[in-house]
């Protein structure tokens, strides 16, 4: 786009693709592709729809026929799941824990990545590789000792304990991802900020951090999903503490055993799934963008 005078009409004229003739082969490939993708989409959607529909049924209705619509759209399953089974308070706990951990890990991770990416000092490579090692080690290995670390500092079975552990385990990914991002920001800007008299702190918070916003958004999305879905950490170090959603859901499903209120179970699952799903549908464009950003370096 070198010329600024081109009018919208000219542009649209320029980009109007010629309608290519479709060959029979194209049609076949298109049909096969559409069929395959449609089948997969159905495999994805049907279980979700079925769960949603079943969340309005009574247990006997569910067992009578898996397909029949509920005789009436009753919301008492949701009331039961939300208050009696405690999904409501678990939900709130999850929001608090994941929200706090997310904010903390984004700030700390950005700071750490910034220092590692923009300053060379003895040991900086070593720290970077230490972070990388944390990415590949299975969380499982750490759970037993972690249990006692938290016990010793009195944070076992507490939400703050959970938050700080979430921060620790989300840190390597955050640093690793933002490292390359900060590395790519031009050095001249730091120099300009220094010439203008900004100290290290101000340079970071007022110049670099705002520039890193797109990268931060991508990492935040993935961290959110990762932490929201986290299951092993809470069941290991928060088993007797105030439950988070994933933990509470498992307990609810387990405690029911055979004694059955399946409608309420489906309602609980729906409550867990739907909020994130809605957020995803709204922000899916950004998310697709961040996946590509994270992989095409």
């Amino acid at each position, binding site marked *: 786009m070198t010329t600024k005078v081109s009018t919208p009409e000219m542009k649209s004229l320029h980009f109007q*693709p010629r309608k290519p003739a479709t060959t029979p082969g*194209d049609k076949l490939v298109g049909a096969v592709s559409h069929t395959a993708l449609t089948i997969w989409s159905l495999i994805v959607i049907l279980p979700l729809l079925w769960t949603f529909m079943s969340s309005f049924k009574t247990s006997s209705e569910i067992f009578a026929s898996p397909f029949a619509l509920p005789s009436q759209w009753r919301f008492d399953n949701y009331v039961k799941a939300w208050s009696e089974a405690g999904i409501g308070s678990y939900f709130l706990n999850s929001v608090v824990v994941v929200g706090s951990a997310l904010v903390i890990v984004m700030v700390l991770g950005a700071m*750490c990545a910034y220092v590692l990416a923009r300053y060379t000092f003895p040991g900086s490579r070593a720290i970077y590789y230490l972070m990388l090692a944390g990415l590949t080690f*299975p969380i499982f*290995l*750490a759970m*037993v000792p972690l249990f006692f670390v938290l016990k010793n500092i009195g944070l076992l079975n507490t939400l703050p304990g959970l938050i700080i552990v979430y921060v620790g385990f989300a*840190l390597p990914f955050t640093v690793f991802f933002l490292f390359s991002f900060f590395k790519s920001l031009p050095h001249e800007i730091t120099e300009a900020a220094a010439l203008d008299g900004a100290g290290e702190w101000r340079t970071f918070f007022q110049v670099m951090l705002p520039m890193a916003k797109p990268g931060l958004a991508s990492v935040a999305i993935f961290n959110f999903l990762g932490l929201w879905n986290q299951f092993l950490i809470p069941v290991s170090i928060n088993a007797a503490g105030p439950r988070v959603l994933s933990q509470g*859901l498992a307990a609810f499903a387990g405690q029911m055993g055979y004694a059955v209120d399946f409608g309420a179970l489906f309602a609980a699952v729906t409550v867990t799934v739907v909020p994130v799903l809605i957020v995803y549908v709204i922000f899916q464009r950004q998310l697709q963008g961040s996946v590509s950003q994270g992989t095409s370096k």
Partner: protein
Amino acid sequence: MTVVKTKQSRNDDGLAAVVPAMAPPVVVRRRRKPLTWDKVSFFAVFLGLPLAIYLLFVIWPFIQAFGYSLTDWSGFSPTQNFIGFDNYARIFSDDIFMKAMGNNILLVIVLPIVTIILSLVLATMVTVGGSSKGQIKGLRNSSFYRVVSFFPYTIPAIAIGIMWGQIYDPSGGLLNGILTGMGLDQFKDFAWLGDKNTAMTATMFVIVWGFVGFYMVLFVAGIKGIPAELFEAARIDGAGRLRTAVSITIPLIRDNIQTAYIYMGILALDAFVYMAALNSGGGPDNSTLVMAQQLFFTAFSKGQFGLASAMGVVLAVATLIFSGLVFVINRLTGGDKDVSI
């Protein structure tokens, strides 16, 4: 930047005049400034704080786990005796743990391959399934498929497990409902998760279901990063769709594929959540028991922390071996030298 630029050094001189007299003689090397309070506090907070949390809550437990694995510690006894590699000997002669390890190995072999092939096929269809004339195009409405396929990735694994547990339910489940509805009456009351021949396959399908969409989006991003000219050139040279996919697409996104393979493999070595949700007891004949479940049980139910830590070490070593293998194989077959996770 080792080249000394005269202009640059003059700039630095100018800066030094502003800096207090304690500043050392100005050198031409860049970013060598005197330690100020600003700088010291900056490093202490920016590097020290995250690192402290990371070391205390991530690295230190990992290191401790190796130590514990050499003791007979039960967690609550005040003493822990050093027993060398006895725990490891016990693990490897424990039939149940070996069974669990075998299941993990099966998962590591099957899950990445199935997930990657399926998502690669779908991603290819989405990106280059359009007309073979004119511009390279994706299918129409392809973004719909992409958005929908990604759904499972936003659902907590435990919710996926519970949901599928209900779908596989022998009498009230969706799957048997569909199958009997199609006239396949032998599946009436068939317990998919209760039969040792089907439990593992059914479980693996759930995991694949959860991840295909994510890797599809990842591959779509990778394919879109390939310059369109390459596809056009291949087309002009007469390459068909299959040929293009095999000879152009796959080699050019092999780094993405490697990343996907490693992530999926690490997940397969864990798989705790899915197994716990679908068959918390390890399934019929322990057919879906995985190492992580056995570790969890040993540690938090039986209180044998020394033994559980040894299992954790085995799991970690298995993960490292797996990642190493993928790297080596990818390198040997001509992959990129750079590691990009």
